[in-house]
């Protein structure tokens, strides 16, 4: 792999940038792999990367029906945080946050992880009780988190309106300083380049059309480019997980909903951090390019259209203007949608299935981006060892039978 550095950049500039190598190959599929990952988004690519790099499994293919990182990795609002309420979720997302901290260096690819912090606002007495509870739990779990007053909110994000003008004035917030945002596409590309450099075959424009299953064991997949064998198959297909599961005769407790986001035109720096509000229902941060990156909740109906309804966009902007009245004259550039696979308890599924060798990593709902490295890492460990990693174990499909749900609706109510 060609190492990237500032020095290298200068050197290439003098060569008129004619000597940059491909960031990943475009190989022909082999007949057989040790592990197949279905889905070339962030989570799938991260899984492949860690399989090859950390667990020595290099005969791996990532099968992607479109282009790498083209699903929710390309469509999310890039928020990274780990201030989840329950122990199991906190551990998973904090494991991810720890990996984020060194990810650019590990991948030798600048994913622009920017630890500008996340405010989760409270607007009612009950909001504040929930915030205190979550922050106390975070603190005792070793997750950076604190309760801040409206005045402290204003110091962190000076343009926010903390006055009583608001319909629901801000009563306080939780503040996770180590949280932030990252450059979403770069995450997919960095993992892709890293995985490729360790020998992983990234097969784009390759669509899985079925599974080869015999005697309750997975033997491979059928694709539009022929059959490919592997005794371990990990499906990491986000909104299309339910479709894949059906091909294997498995029913997952998932609903695929549209989730929308939008950006303003690029502006000079005006926001410092990520501000989220469950109560007025919207969140906003500013990208390095200058866009206000804005999102809210899912559309209520089910769909695979990667488009949502206009009222959701209207409600979202109402919330943003409620929190930041001066953004009223700022203009919205673009909106888009993704398909999110939501679980009944707003937590993901990382699990074996009744088919031996077939694993699923899905159900990340509205907040999967932040988990990308952590999800990939623990899923890779599970695939490599044939046993679910301890951090992944509580997220088994079994929990929907036993009732051991991990209800994170409070933390994930407005997504992310």
């Amino acid at each position: 792999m060609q190492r990237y550095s500032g020095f290298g950049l200068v050197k290439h500039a003098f060569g008129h940038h004619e000597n940059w190598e491909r960031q990943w190959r475009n190989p022909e599929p082999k007949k057989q792999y040790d592990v197949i990952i279905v889905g070339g988004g962030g989570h799938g690519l991260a899984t492949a990367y860690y399989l090859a790099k950390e667990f020595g499994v290099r005969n791996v293919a990532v099968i992607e029906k479109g282009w790498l990182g083209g699903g929710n990795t390309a469509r999310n609002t890039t928020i990274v945080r780990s201030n989840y309420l329950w122990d199991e979720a906190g551990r998973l997302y904090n494991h991810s946050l720890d990996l984020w901290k060194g990810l650019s260096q590990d991948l030798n690819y600048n994913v622009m992880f920017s630890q500008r912090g996340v405010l989760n606002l409270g607007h009612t007495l009950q909001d504040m009780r929930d915030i205190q509870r979550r922050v106390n739990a975070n603190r005792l779990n070793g997750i950076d988190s604190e309760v801040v007053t409206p005045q402290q909110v204003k110091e962190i994000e000076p343009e926010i309106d903390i006055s009583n003008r608001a319909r629901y004035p801000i009563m306080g917030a939780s503040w996770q300083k180590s949280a932030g945002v990252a450059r979403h596409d770069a995450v997919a590309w960095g993992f892709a380049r890293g995985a490729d450099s360790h020998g992983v075959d990234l097969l784009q424009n390759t669509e899985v059309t079925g599974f080869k299953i015999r005697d309750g064991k997975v033997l491979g997949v059928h694709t539009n480019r022929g059959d490919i064998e592997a005794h371990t198959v990990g499906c990491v297909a986000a909104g299309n997980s339910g479709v894949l599961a059906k091909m294997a005769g498995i029913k997952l407790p998932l609903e695929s909903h549209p989730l929308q986001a939008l950006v303003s035109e690029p502006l000079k720096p005006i926001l410092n951090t990520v501000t989220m509000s469950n109560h007025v229902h919207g969140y906003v941060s500013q990208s390095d390019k200058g866009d206000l990156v804005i999102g809210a909740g899912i559309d209520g109906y089910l769909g695979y259209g990667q488009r949502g309804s206009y009222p959701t966009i209207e409600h979202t902007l109402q919330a943003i203007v409620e929190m930041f009245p001066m953004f009223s004259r700022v203009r919205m550039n673009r909106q888009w949608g993704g398909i999110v696979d939501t679980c009944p308890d707003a937590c993901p599924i990382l699990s074996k299935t009744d088919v031996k060798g077939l694993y699923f990593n899905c159900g990340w709902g509205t907040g999967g981006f932040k988990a990308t490295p952590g999800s990939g890492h623990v899923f890779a460990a599970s695939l490599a060892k044939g046993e679910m990693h301890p951090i992944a174990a509580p997220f088994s499909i079994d929990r929907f039978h036993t009732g051991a749900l991990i209800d994170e609706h409070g933390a994930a109510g407005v997504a992310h």
Partner: protein
Amino acid sequence: MTQTNRLSAGGRIDRSHGLEFTFNGQRYQGFAGDTLASALLANGVDIINRSFKYSRARGIVAAGAEEPNAVVQLGAREETQVPNVRATQQGLYDGLVARSTNGWPNVQRDVMSWVGKLGGNFMPPGFYYKTFMSPASMWMTYEKYIRMGAGLGRAPTVADPDIYDHMHHHCDVMVIGAGAAGLAAALSAARSGARVILCDEQEEMGGSLLDSRDTLDGVSAVRWIEQTLNELASMETVTLLPRTTANGYHDHNFVTLHERRTEHLADTASDAGFPDMPRARLHRVRATRVVLATGTHERPLVYANNDLPGNMVAGAVSTYIRRYGVIPGNSLVLTTSNDHAYRAALDWQEAGRKVVAIVDARANPDGDLVRQACDSGIRVITGSAVIEAKGTQRVSGARVSAVDLDHFVITGRIEDLECDTIASSGGYSPVVHLSSHTGTRPQWDENLLGFVPGEVKGMLMAGGVAGHYGLDNTLSDGARAGRQAAIDSGFDEAGELNLPTVKARRDGPACAIYQVPHEKKGLRVPKQFVDMQNDVTASAIELATREGFESIEHVKRYTALGFGTDQGKLGNINGMAIAARCLGRSIPEVGTTVFRPNYTPITFGAIVGRHCDELFDPKRYTALHQWHVEYGAEFEDVGQWKRPWYFPRNANGKKESMHDAVARECLAVRQGVGILDASTLGKIDIQGPDAREFLGRVYTNKWAKLAPGRVRYGLMCKDDGMLMDDGTTSCLGDNHFLMTTTTGGAASVLEWLEVWHQTEWPELQVYFNSVTDHWATMTVTGPEARKLMSEVTDIDLDREQFKFMDWKEGNVAGVPARVFRISFTGELAYEINVQANYAMQVWKTLFEHGEKYDLTPYGTETMHVLRAEKGLIIVGQDTDGSVTPEDLGMHWAIGYDKPFHWIGKRALSRPDTMRGDRKQLVGLKPKDANVVLEEGAQIVLDPNQAIPMSMVGHVTSSYYSPVLESGFALAVLKEGRERMGQTVYLPMSDGKTHEAEVVSTVFIDPKGERQNV
């Protein structure tokens, strides 16, 4: 300064109406009818901005929505700032103030341009992914400077003085674009009687007809526009919306239109003299048929230094000359691939300035316009193209060479031509954006050398967007589409439009040229810009493809092609063509990226409409609200309701603290009598022969035997067995019940009942009706409650006659009332329900009689303390969607043996819900009576363990009790009921660890005698 580039005659501006405006602090003049761009060009302003990455000087390139460069900051005052206004789309008004968004100390001499010049080579696409990685700790510093360099304009920092609104329409035919095709479509649809909406984004309707050289029926095209608009305006079924951009095309022919109402008049509506007028309006249109008549965008050619001020697209040159009477330079070189662009040279020459040459990429151009140019003595250089623009601050010349497009090389000698303007045209791209919003993919048309819209159900296309070029084709296609749209919408055919005759023009075939070859290769070529706003060059696209970014989406994301506020209207097709060449594929194989709403950016305010400030979310007040206000209540938001939180008294000019007020209110209830406005609790009237059966299915407990006149407390679970709401339900008659819900849960409970009824048990005859607002509820509670009530009601209050959990009808304070003997305080209590508009009278009468008992109003905080002292839960505070009725110790309220499997029953028998070590509701008594534990504090058994600690529960409710003279709390605790008497620990953020004893949830009157005195 005079308007050096203003022609002495011509154009559609009003020369009698001069306007003054300011750009970068300099005052200029223009005319009514100008855009900011035309006025700047008239005044000879070349440099409008500095580019985003390389800080290169940039001027006006286009004349409409496709303009990438001339993006300015608008507004004379802080509150009227608007970032990123496209000068080509901003109508000029007197007093307009605009600034460049980049450039320091000024846009002419920008320091950053040296960084761009010297450092540009070190900034290939994606360079930021390859560097700034070490040391890791420096990233936030690097990023700070990256952020400072990014962005275009700036947000205002104070609130917007203007208002916005929404309008909703249904129509038969929605015509988007009022050029030749759109006007013909609208007219032909409207004549059949269809309800037509015609919108157009420009200051004036007419589209390219406004600068057309063609005549209609022998007279200027403008006359036909006027006639057509007059006829349309006279029809009641037609709505004309000028200055209105169709910004989004959504599913099922739902179109959002953004109308600029005052932006062309002044900074604010007030400044314009219309203080009540919305600055912008969002129209939400549902159309039976949409006619897309959005025309085309001209593609510039991609040659070296094609971004220097003085480079323009050819059509824009014609627009400025013919529509605005502005000629943007002195000497012109036109470089083209097609006949239509020749107009620019002809218009230029007719305006009296010099055309140096037309450089045509075709070997043998031959068409009417080509002949006309030759006949006018213009030099036409064939088989050639401008390969590079020369100049520093503005074009000073053009390098021209013969080109071999098949091999992508230049051939022959390079000729230098002196000029100050280069107009270019690489052909025309149909404006497919809106159709793409619906999810359909544009289709490549090899004859047109452009993408046309894919199929959309309910959409028709007319004119240029469908590839019908030439005015005669455009008009007839528009008329056809309008007629068809009306027929499709159910109207009878109105007959052919009597279309004006247009002299047909013969155009020769165009050739395919996007990027122009240069004598140097790759990144050695002086920059050839594809997307000017994002500084994306042809070599950047080449590099991206070399690095393995083969999908056009990857190319877009790696280079930022098309990510600007223009969404790549000028550059995207060129970029795709370049990527295709580099990858050795055809353009349709490479495909397009997806265009998203908005077509052009629209203000947040317009999307928000009136749903801001006071109207962001309605406030709900009880019938007694005014009394509470006058009594000095502090309020709490509960759902949408404003509920009195506590009633501080003023003594000696000093307001009582919340702690003191709550203590006083609590003692009043425990020792005398208090009154609570409980009107906000949800009330659902349930009727029907199966009402009782239905209740048995949605509540965990039994309802079969509840007799009329009796009340029962019920628990409602979700299908996962977790408690979702609670409340009392009263039997009003055998088929008639009144359910109460929590304040916040009222709407969701009603929805829940409806969902189960409508989807699962439609066979049950039962009906639900929200009556929350119809009844006001007043809770009179305390040992003196019966005495007070006896003075105001005719109901027999004898404790044997009117038992706990009974309800009775009668008069209270002279009005008909329902009185319920239920208690949320543990004291004797009467809940009085009266028709809401009688409530104030009843409340005041109670206070008249209550004075002698020191009747004390109390708020939600006291209510919380009183109920917590009795161990009564609040759903949503003591529960969180993970708590079962068993966890709460409410085994008594679960009817396991009910015949029907009520909601949640099955889930309660799952292994995890049956676990013995679940968290259970307990009471906590702090070891230090002065401590009030923090709500949300986490409980541990071993305070000395290392982080991460093992947490076993948390405090759900915690207060100071003036009766206990101690803090006390409710909590959920793992195996809590087994831990009575044990000590648990609560480590806090300040480093202190509190100790508490696990106790019963009932702190006062464990036998429950007081509520029955």
